[in-house]
């Protein structure tokens, strides 16, 4: 009853906050609730009949969580999950406040949560997940995670809380290093040797397990091209369509499918999973084509050197009109510099809060720059007002902060990134 009262207070606080600032009611009531009843979160997530499962890693958490949720829902389960932005304790508590019924109960037979590496490791001691997916230890946000060993430590903390299954990336040497310390049974996913050998050597990971030393895979990406892939999960194979072009999406799909297979046991059908994966809506900013102000525009999100590399490499050569925007996501954008951007040839407008840094990044990789316009709104207006390119499609490459601002400014709705 104490927790119920706490939730009621939280809901009132959210209403109050919304009156003050339209749409701004997310994180505030979480703080309120947690001050009153710190155990709210732990209690809420211990009462799902089919338990709690978590997904973490340097990149791909959001996509993999959504994929796992969709696969489970396609198997007729009702799943509670957190929106991508709510991956810290306060955000999670707010998500609870919004969805709890009058008696403080949450909908869903199970909860599948995306967990930020750092915040998740702090939160996880009070939670008891039955399964944890550990995706990768990559180079990401080096000002928050300057030492990848810290990230490995966080993922180890999260993984060790899992009581029945840990699903981890067998190509990732950091994750293999901590695999023996897991309490629960370890299942592995990875990329088929043939694909690794064919020119996808780095996979965005800090350290790779050499192919010859890799442990046997329970699931793997057997084939990949552009926006389709073939997965093997345990004994079955299936072709799937990906929500966006990129090998990392196929790897995320393999991870999600393997996790679902462990959770559902004999009830798992790879065909059903494949259907769910293939009909996932493209997530905004992941190579999704949108019509804006009468023009077709491709939007691509950039989060680290690996994704920047992949996105740049995927652009058709000679793409005429590119807007590149770098925002306030990270204080130190230096870690983007190892990406190879020469293939971009030229960028029409460089924008965002870090426009000048982005201009340096591009220029020093021999990319011609049309103009630097730090004001993102002005840059978007100018870019969209240009006549349609004679070849290709207008393309926007942006970091998460610039993406959010772009979506807001252009009034674009759709699934959150």
């Amino acid at each position, binding site marked *: 009853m104490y927790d119920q009262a706490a939730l009621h207070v939280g809901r009132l606080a959210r209403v109050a906050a919304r009156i003050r600032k339209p749409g701004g009611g997310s994180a505030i009531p979480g703080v309120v609730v947690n001050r009153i009843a710190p155990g709210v979160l732990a209690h809420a997530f211990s009462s799902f009949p089919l338990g709690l499962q978590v997904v973490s890693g340097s990149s791909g958490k959001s996509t993999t969580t959504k994929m796992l949720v969709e696969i489970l829902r396609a198997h007729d389960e009702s799943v509670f999950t957190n929106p991508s932005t709510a991956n810290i304790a306060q955000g999670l508590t707010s998500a609870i406040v919004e969805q709890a019924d009058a008696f403080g109960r949450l909908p869903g037979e199970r909860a599948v949560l995306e967990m930020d590496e750092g915040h998740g490791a702090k939160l996880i001691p009070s939670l008891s997940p039955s399964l944890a997916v550990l995706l990768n230890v990559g*180079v990401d946000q*080096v*000002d928050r995670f*300057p*030492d*990848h*060993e810290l990230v490995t430590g966080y993922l180890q903390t999260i993984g060790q809380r899992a009581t029945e299954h840990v699903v981890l990336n067998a190509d990732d040497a950091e994750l293999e290093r901590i695999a023996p310390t897991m309490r629960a049974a370890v299942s592995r996913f990875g990329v088929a040797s043939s694909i690794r050998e064919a020119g996808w050597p780095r996979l965005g990971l800090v350290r790779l397990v050499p192919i010859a030393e890799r442990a046997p895979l329970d699931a793997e990406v057997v084939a990949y091209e552009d926006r389709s892939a073939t997965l093997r999960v345990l004994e079955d194979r299936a072709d799937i369509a990906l929500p966006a072009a990129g090998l990392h999406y196929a790897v995320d799909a393999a991870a999600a499918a393997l996790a679902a297979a462990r959770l559902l046991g004999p009830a798992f059908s790879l065909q059903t999973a494949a259907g769910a994966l293939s009909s996932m809506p493209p997530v905004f900013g992941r190579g999704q084509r949108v019509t804006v102000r009468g023009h077709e525009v491709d939007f691509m999100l950039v989060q680290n*050197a690996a994704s920047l590399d992949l996105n740049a490499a995927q652009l058709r050569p000679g793409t005429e009109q590119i807007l590149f925007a770098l925002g306030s996501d990270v*204080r*130190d954008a*230096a*870690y*983007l*510099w*190892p990406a190879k951007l020469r293939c971009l040839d030229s960028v029409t407008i460089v924008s965002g*809060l*870090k426009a*000048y*840094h982005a*201009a*340096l*990044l591009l*220029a*020093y*990789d*021999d990319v011609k720059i049309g103009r*630097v316009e730090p004001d993102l709104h002005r840059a978007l207006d100018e870019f969209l007002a240009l006549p349609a390119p004679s070849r290709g499609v207008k393309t926007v490459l942006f970091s998460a902060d610039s993406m959010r601002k772009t979506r807001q400014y252009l009034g674009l709705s759709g699934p959150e990134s």
Partner: protein
Amino acid sequence: MTLRIARVGTECLNTFGDLENARVLAMRAAWAGIPVTTVQVDHPDEWDAFDAIVLGSGTDGLLPEARALLEAGRDVLESALEDGVPVLAVSAGFELLGQQITTARGTTIPGLGLFPYSSSPSERVTGRLVVEVEGRQLVGFENHDRRVTGVTSPLGTVVEGIGNGDGHDGVRHGGLIGVHGHGPVLAFNPWLADEILGTISATHGLAYAPGPAHARIDGWAVQAAAAVH
């Protein structure tokens, strides 16, 4: 006569993008009509004579590997330092040339012993670092959890930030320029890139002169450096 700039440690010394300083040098040289190529040094047998060397920085777990790579290049580094060849070394890169590094976890890694300084653990500092170097400002983003003691010839005095921890940052000795600032630091501070390029061009009887391409990008560098926080 193509000038050769080494970028040392793709796997273990480029966590913070510091090897891309070599790219900054190469592009500025290309815009000035001076042929420059960058050469990756990732294995002991890839050490060679170079016109300039860039040592980057990496995470603690990678230090033993980085140290081994530098040890394999000991002769090259010693000759370079004797001959005044520019060696730009960022953070762990210059720390590894000293006596030893003790990490936050308490692991001690011996340095190459080329210099008397050592580094030991301290509170992590991240943020804007401004160092005054011979009347000019060097701006970078520092991100480290060690302090360096025993530097007899620092690069400059700290105006903003922590640097080595005693009011100075880095080390300067002959051609060695040791700094804590990431960025890559030469991208934010083209004056230093030009100083290095001037030196190595002159060694080969070439004149390095920045032009309009440099001016445009240097305007951006000023703005980008001002925004480091």
